[in-house]
């Protein structure tokens, strides 16, 4: 008889579903405390200006206004802090220079939002308007205004290798960065000489799409005397803490992250607003809330980065790519929220082509006087993959090769080596196979459906139809994490780890792992509160599709030690070898004679409360080897030649997922991510006025996410369990970003349908019609 619990690969309901369907789950949005005050922000109407003076008298006279903060209250006293660990440059809570239209000018604390807003209208500010650089090209021009000229823009908190130098003069808007700017492998110039075909193009990613999380970037700061607790809608628990520690001192602010109503990458960093509420709570002795308006969400709380990518590609007649050269500019906006990394990650899209021996890259993140960009699902490689994909496809077109052949020929296999763009050395890929693309191609009937470069799948007066595919490789895991795992006499297990719940169901997935390995019911496994006071430190939280791998590896190590201790104790009490023992629920017993056993409670007796093990994943993190996955999506789409609309008829998506913990979750993640990706290609665009820096469509009506009607009707998935990566627990790989990254395949389908290549993204109806009218 099989007495083991089976969770991995089985369908298990989410552990948080009941709270969400009853409306009883408390998000940060719902938190209310007695005496709670509200904070609202005055925002700059200029893209670049110095603040000369304030007159707060009329605003302060409004009944119900408790305090108004300006840079005079905070800049000198609290200085600058990183927005994430090692984040750079540092930011001040309120500064005396504004760097984008919508940048923070002042913060009003009042008894309610209406009163705060009334006060905002009465604050008088004198600005010294400065020239602004609103695009990448303007920001890198010779006479560009310097956006972060102060010395605090270089140097890293506590990094002796990069000390602050007050005499350093900043002369460029390219972010000075410790990340490697220039990468060089092989001999690129010689390679171009040998190439049979060279393709060069500059591609602009112009979407700037906001995350549109349904839950805004809210925070509530509650003073407790010794410390302030900040409840925050967030995804990186300790990531946000570094700003608070620097501003206020270690331990003065602790963070709790309740279930989060959507993050998609925008909630890694401490926001300045959520730091000022902590200060106000400390000074006023009352809870203070920041509940951003929807307009603020668009202007202020990050979006996809704009990119200008110039790729030059050299290939032989048979489609082997022998040279890859890219200069990648990334538009950070007025501040850097992890964007240096996004710029580097854009080049990660080159991991589709691990067989190319000669590569040269220049990674240039740039400040502009526009709303800051940040991480977004498919962090940099989503934006970058259009540019590289476009170059590879144009090469295939010139050589009249089936693009599938080109990717299978050049693409990644386990054991391949590639540049690590963050650390600058060569890393080994331990899993990730272009074979998954080939297999899915068969399922999609690619060979039958691809009509070649010369004609569309079908065409009539109104509609042209095309097929395409995209693929986008990225690492899955390989970042440090830590957990504490305990088992108790009542047969339960407690996981303590910085695993925030942003919708992906990672807490359920990791609970399944623990339940199965310890052979207990999943109902007996729970997480501790996601608080900086209760869980062990992990610098980056739910990000880069890594949680299952990194936290999973920690848990496997902890479980192994717990079982060792449990059976050692059991062996002592039952008078046998630990190897003779097994456990189910809270009962340790002899495998050969199950009647001989003892419950955990009695095993622990009067001497033990629990078996608790702390574990990290250091054996799996060396910066030299990483698991990878190869997500892909095949599309068939219609281009409406009259309206410029693009409609997806069907798609087949998937990834080489390794061992799957939660089949339903994987499909749900994939559907949701794909829908976002499709929106980024065809519908969604944030319009930032190129003269005033103003966000023109900052609301859900003119820049909204997909509705139910936008969901394609026919969707199919393929999740082959190819190789099981030894660096991952059980062969699991994370998922989250792979689902939208292959959306550049729609560009191939568009080319197949219309014969046209876009050089910008997105292609909304306007861009489509412009392309169709081009000669």
């Amino acid at each position, binding site marked *: 008889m099989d007495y083991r619990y089976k969770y991995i690969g089985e369908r298990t309901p989410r552990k948080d579903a009941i709270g969400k369907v009853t409306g009883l789950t408390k998000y940060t949005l719902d938190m209310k405390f007695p005496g709670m005050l509200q904070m609202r922000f005055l925002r700059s109407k200029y893209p670049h200006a110095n603040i000369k003076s304030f007159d707060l008298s009329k605003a302060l006279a409004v009944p119900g206004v408790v305090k108004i903060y300006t840079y005079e209250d905070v800049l000198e006293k609290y200085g600058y802090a990183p927005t994430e660990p090692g984040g750079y440059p540092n930011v001040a809570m309120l500064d005396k220079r504004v760097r984008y239209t919508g940048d923070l000018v002042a913060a009003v604390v009042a008894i309610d939002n209406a009163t705060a807003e009334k006060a905002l209208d009465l604050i008088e500010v004198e600005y010294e308007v400065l020239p602004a650089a609103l695009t990448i090209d303007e920001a890198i021009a010779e006479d560009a205004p310097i956006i972060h000229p102060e010395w605090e823009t270089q140097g890293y908190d506590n990094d002796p290798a990069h000390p602050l130098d007050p005499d350093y003069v900043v002369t460029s808007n390219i972010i000075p960065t410790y990340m490697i700017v220039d990468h060089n492998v092989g001999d690129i110039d010689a390679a171009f000489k040998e190439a049979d075909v060279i393709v060069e193009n500059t591609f602009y990613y112009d979407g700037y799409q906001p995350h549109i999380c349904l839950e805004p970037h809210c925070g509530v700061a509650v003073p407790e005397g010794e410390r302030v607790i900040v409840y925050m809608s967030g995804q990186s628990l300790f990531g946000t803490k570094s700003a608070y520690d620097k501003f206020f001192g270690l331990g003065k602010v602790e963070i709790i992250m309740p279930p989060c109503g959507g993050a998609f990458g925008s909630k890694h960093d401490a926001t300045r607003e959520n730091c000022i509420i902590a200060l106000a709570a400390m000074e006023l002795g009352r809870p203070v809330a920041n509940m951003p308006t929807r307009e603020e969400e668009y202007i202020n709380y990050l979006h996809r980065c704009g990119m200008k990518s110039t790729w030059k590609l050299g290939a032989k007649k048979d489609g082997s790519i022998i040279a890859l050269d890219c200069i990648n500019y990334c538009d950070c906006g007025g501040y850097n929220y992890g964007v240096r990394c996004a710029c580097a990650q854009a080049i990660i899209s080159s991991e589709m082509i691990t067989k190319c021996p000669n590569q040269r890259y220049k990674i240039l993140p740039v400040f502009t006087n526009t709303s800051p960009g940040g991480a977004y699902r498919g962090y940099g490689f989503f934006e970058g993959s259009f540019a590289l994909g476009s170059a590879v496809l144009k090469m295939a077109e010139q050589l009249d090769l089936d693009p599938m052949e080109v990717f299978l020929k050049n693409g990644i296999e386990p054991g391949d080596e590639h540049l690590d763009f963050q650390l600058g050395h060569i890393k080994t890929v331990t899993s990730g196979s272009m074979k998954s693309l080939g297999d899915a191609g068969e399922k999609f009937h690619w060979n039958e459906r691809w009509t070649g470069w010369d004609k569309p799948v079908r065409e009539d007066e109104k509609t042209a139809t095309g097929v395409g595919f995209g693929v986008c490789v990225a690492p899955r895991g390989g970042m440090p994490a830590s957990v504490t795992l305990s088992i108790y006499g009542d047969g339960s297990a407690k996981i303590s780890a910085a695993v925030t719940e942003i919708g992906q169901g990672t807490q359920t997935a990791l609970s399944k792992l623990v339940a199965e390995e310890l052979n207990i019911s999943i109902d007996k496994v729970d997480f501790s509160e996601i608080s900086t006071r209760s869980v062990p430190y992990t610098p980056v939280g739910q990000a880069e599709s890594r949680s299952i791998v990194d936290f999973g590896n920690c848990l496997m190590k902890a479980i192994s030690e717990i079982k060792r201790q449990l059976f050692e104790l059991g062996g002592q009490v039952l008078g046998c070898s630990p190897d003779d023992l097994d456990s189910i629920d809270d009962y340790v017993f002899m495998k050969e004679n199950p009647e001989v056993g003892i419950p955990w409670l009695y095993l622990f007796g009067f001497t033990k409360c629990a078996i608790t093990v702390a574990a990290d994943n250091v054996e799996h993190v060396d910066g030299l080897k990483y698991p990878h996955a190869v997500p892909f999506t095949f599309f068939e789409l219609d281009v409406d030649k009259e309206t410029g609309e693009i409609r997806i008829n069907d798609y087949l998506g998937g990834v080489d997922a390794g061992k799957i913990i939660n089949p*339903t979750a994987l499909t*749900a993640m994939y559907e949701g991510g794909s829908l976002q990706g499709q929106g980024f290609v065809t519908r969604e665009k944030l319009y930032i006025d190129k003269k005033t820096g103003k966000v023109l469509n900052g609301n859900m009506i003119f820049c909204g996410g997909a509705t139910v009607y936008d969901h394609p009707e026919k969707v199919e998935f393929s999740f082959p369990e190819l190789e099981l990566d030894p660096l991952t627990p059980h062969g699991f790989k994370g998922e989250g970003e792979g689902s939208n990254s292959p959306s550049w395949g729609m560009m191939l389908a568009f080319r197949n349908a219309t014969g046209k290549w876009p050089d910008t993204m997105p292609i909304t109806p306007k861009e489509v019609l412009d392309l169709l009218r081009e000669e």
Partner: protein
Amino acid sequence: METNTAVSSKVITIRVNGQLYMQHVYANTTLAELLRDQLGLTGTKVSCNDGACGACTVICDGEAILSCHVLAIECEGKTIETIEGISKNGELHPLQKAFAAEENWLQCGLCVPGMIMSAKALLDRNPHPTEDEVLESISSNICRCGNYRRHLNAIRQVVEGVYD
């Protein structure tokens, strides 16, 4: 509660989840503010405050409405149902069971109360809707996690009586 120093106010009677209340509201207090801030019923979410996302959907006299875009004063004397009121004697409503089911794997969950109330308003009026009617009922509910196929599946399952 918002002070709104220059705005007039009134005491209104309103029935919420079967319970009668007398509440003091300002002329510009929205129904969502009344429900969330005064009655503590935070299951109804305010996400855009602009009538564009549907997270605030509740049922008013049998009709799905966007509570962030309706004034509390307009609801005087009316009957309101929120997500907190649809389970009976501790048992989940079939729509709640369906949305919580494994095959309908919800994600961040913020759209779910509004989505359920939109569907409930349809099914209370018409227990056998067409596919188009089901789609239309949630056409004003944005789900950024992109879980639409599963939300639709949940509603269809309820129509088919799977959770009766």
